[in-house]
C-alpha cells in the first residue's frame, strides 16, 4: 500500500501526490487486465424459479488498462457497460474470465482481501441524485467510506472531508448541507469527492455526465482531468456519447451486445472508424454547426439493441447493420488488428 490510513495519514495533498507518483514509477505492468470476461445472468420462470434462459450481458471482454491511459467505453443503453463496470469491481461474481488489478488476480479473492483492494478502485455513477442518500449531509456522505475503511476521527476526519470538497471545487463550508440543496453538476462533484476519499488509483466513471447540461458536462470533464493529473488517477470512462469521451480517453472501445466490436487510439477511432456500428455512433453525435450538419452523411440505426437473452446468430450487429451481407449470419466475427493498436470485429472489414 502506498498510502497508509489512520495514524500515518497525512492531510497535505502534496505528500500524497509524491507517494502516488512514486508508486506509479514502480508499475510497468498494466494497472488492470480484463481477460475473456463473461457475465451471464440466469433467466428464471415459474414458482420453482427454473432457469429458462441466459442473459449474456458481458460475453468475452478483453482489454488492458495502463496507468493514466484512460479507456473510453461507448455503446447504447443495454449493451452491457454497467454490468462490465460492476463485474470488474466484483460487485458481481464473473461467470468466466479473469480480472487482474495491479498484478493481483482478484477474480476469486475472498472478501477481506477484496475489501482492502476495493478501496483502490471506485465508481462514479450516472445520476448523482440516485447515488447520494438524501437524508445524509454532504459531509457524512463523503466521510462514509472513511468511516468504513479508516480509523480517521474528529478533526482529521473533518479535515479530510474539507480537503476533498475543496479538491472538487465545492466550498468546504457546505459539508453540513443536504444533497437537494445542490445543482446536478454540484451533486456530481459530491459523488466524485466521495469516490476520491480513499485515494483510489482507478475510477470507473459510469456515464457521469449523461444527466447534466452540456455546459456543466464540460466542467465535470475538466475537473476529472485536473484530478487525474494531480492524483495520478486512471479512468475507465463509460458513455453512450462519443462526443465528450474523446477528450478524456487515450483509447476508446466500442461495445455492442456484451462484446467489444472495435478498439483503438481515440484519434484513430474518430478519424478512421471501421466498424459500421462505430460509424453510426459517430454520425449520431450532433455537430454544432448547421452548415456541416446539413452536408454530413447521416447513418440512422433503426430500432433498439436486441435482447441479450436472445441475441442474433453470427455477428451481433447484423440485424441493424446498414452494410450487412449474407455471411454475417453464419459466424461471429473475430477481432482482427488493422493498424497500430486498432482492432475491429467485422466480417466486412478486410
Amino acid at each position, binding site marked *: 500500500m502506498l498510502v497508509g490510513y489512520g495514524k500515518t495519514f497525512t492531510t497535505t495533498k502534496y505528500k500524497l501526490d509524491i507517494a502516488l507518483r512514486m508508486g506509479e514509477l514502480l508499475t510497468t505492468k498494466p494497472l488492470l487486465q480484463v481477460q475473456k470476461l463473461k457475465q451471464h445472468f440466469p433467466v428464471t420462470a415459474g414458482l420453482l424459479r427454473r432457469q429458462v434462459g441466459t442473459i449474456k450481458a458481458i460475453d468475452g471482454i478483453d482489454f488492458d488498462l495502463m496507468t493514466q491511459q484512460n479507456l473510453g467505453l461507448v455503446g*447504447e*443503453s*443495454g449493451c452491457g457497460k454497467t454490468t462490465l463496470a460492476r463485474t470488474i469491481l466484483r460487485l458481481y461474481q464473473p461467470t468466466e474470465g479473469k480480472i487482474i488489478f495491479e498484478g493481483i488476480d482478484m477474480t476469486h479473492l475472498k472478501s477481506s482481501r477484496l475489501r482492502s483492494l476495493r478501496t483502490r478502485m471506485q465508481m462514479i455513477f450516472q445520476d448523482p441524485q440516485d447515488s447520494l442518500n438524501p437524508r445524509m449531509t454532504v459531509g457524512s456522505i463523503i466521510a462514509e467510506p472513511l468511516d468504513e475503511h479508516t480509523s480517521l476521527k474528529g478533526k482529521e476526519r473533518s479535515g479530510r472531508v474539507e480537503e476533498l470538497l475543496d479538491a472538487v471545487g465545492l466550498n468546504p463550508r457546505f459539508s453540513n448541507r443536504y444533497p437537494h440543496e445542490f*445543482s*446536478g453538476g454540484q451533486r456530481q462533484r459530491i459523488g466524485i469527492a466521495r469516490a476520491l476519499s480513499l485515494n483510489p488509483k482507478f475510477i470507473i466513471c459510469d456515464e457521469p455526465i449523461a444527466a447534466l*447540461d*452540456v*455546459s*456543466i*458536462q*464540460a*466542467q465535470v*470533464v*475538466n475537473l476529472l*482531468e485536473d484530478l487525474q493529473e494531480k492524483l495520478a488517477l486512471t479512468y475507465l470512462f463509460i458513455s*453512450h*456519447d*462519443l*462526443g*465528450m469521451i*474523446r*477528450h478524456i480517453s487515450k483509447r476508446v472501445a466500442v461495445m455492442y451486445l456484451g462484446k467489444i466490436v472495435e478498439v483503438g487510439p*481515440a*484519434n484513430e477511432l*474518430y478519424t478512421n472508424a471501421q466498424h459500421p456500428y462505430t460509424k*453510426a*455512433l*459517430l*454520425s*449520431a*453525435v*450532433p*455537430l*454544432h*454547426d*448547421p*452548415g456541416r*450538419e*446539413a452536408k454530413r452523411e*447521416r447513418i*440512422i*440505426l*433503426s*430500432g*433498439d439493441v436486441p435482447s441479450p437473452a436472445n441475441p442474433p446468430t453470427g455477428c451481433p450487429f447484423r440485424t441493424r447493420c446498414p452494410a450487412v451481407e449474407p455471411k454475417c449470419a453464419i459466424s461471429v466475427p473475430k477481432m482482427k488488428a488493422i493498424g497500430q493498436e486498432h482492432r475491429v470485429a467485422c466480417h466486412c472489414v478486410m
Partner: protein
Amino acid sequence: MPTNSNANIVLSVKNIVTQFNTVDGKVHAVNGVSFDVRQGELLGVVGESGCGKSVTMMSLVKLLPMPPGEISEGSAIFEGQDLIQTSINDLQKIRGSEIGFIFQDPMTSLNPVLTIGYQLIEPLRLHKNLSKSAARTRAIELLELVGIPMASSRLGDYPHQFSGGMRQRVMIAMALSCDPKLLIADEPTTALDVTMQAQILDLVRSLRNELGMAIIWVTHDLGVVANLADRVMVMYSGFIVERADVTKLYSKPKHPYTYALLKTLPDMEGDRSHRLESIEGQPPDQLKPTTSCPFAPRCEYAFDRCTHENPQLELIAENHEVACWWDMERHSPRPSTSSI
C-alpha cells in the same frame, strides 16, 4: 418554411411574466418573454437548466402548478384566442387537439395502467368524432408514422413494455394524433441515447416536411437544434437574450452567453488536446427582479453599464436580435438607440 408575412403566425406570445411564490420568496422565473411561431416553422429554444424554458411553455397552456405559480402579465394568441385568458376547461380541449405536447419523460403524458391503443384511440374518437374502427386504423397509421415496428400488434401493450426511445415515439404519435397546428416539444431527447436521439430528430425532420405544423423545440443542447431549427432563441434567467436564424446564431453569435454555450460543446473534428471551455459560476437565484444584465456576473465582457441596466432585446441585423450592451464584433460598447 419561414416567411416574413404575419398572416401565417400560429402563436403570438407577448410579454409573459411568470413567478413562483415560495418560502424563500418570489422566484422570477419568466420575465417578459415575447415570440411568434409561424406555420411550418421550427423554433428552437435553448439555455441552461433553470433558465425558464419549461415554465414559459407551461405558462402558455396553464400546465403550471398554480399556486405556487402565477402568470402576472402577458398574452398568447393562438387561433385568435388568448390562451392566458382561457379557462382551464377550454384549454384542456385545445391541448388535446390543436396543440400537441412532447415531454422529456414520456410517462408524464402516458398512463401506465392503460394500453397504448386505448390512449391513442380515445382522444381520436373524442376530438375527431371517429368511429371505433376508423380511430383504430388511424392509431395504427400513427404508430407506423413514428416508426414503431409491427404497430398493429402493439396496440394492446402497456407503456412499460416499450423501451425509452420507443415510448418517446408513442408520445409523439399521441401528440400528433389530432393533427395539431402547433407541437411543443420540451427536451424530448434529453434522456435518450445519442443513437435514439438521432432517430427521433430524423423522424421530426421528416414529419415537419410532411405535416407542415409549427414546432417549438426546447433543449439545453445547442447541438440538437443545429440542423433542426429555422430560428433559435436563447434564454437566460427568464429573459430571451438572443434570437436569430439558425445559421446566423451559430456562425455569428452576438451574445456572450450564446458564444460561451457554443464553446462548451466538444468538437468532433478539431484538436482534442485543448481544455474544454466551460462557463464558470451559476445562473442567478431570481429571488429579486433584476435591474442589471442577469448574465453580467459570469460575463467576461461585462463593463459598468451591465451592472446597473438590463439590456432589452434589440434588432441589430436582419433577423438577428440580441440583448447586450457589448458589441462583440467591434470590441466596444454598443451604441444604444433606446438610450439616446
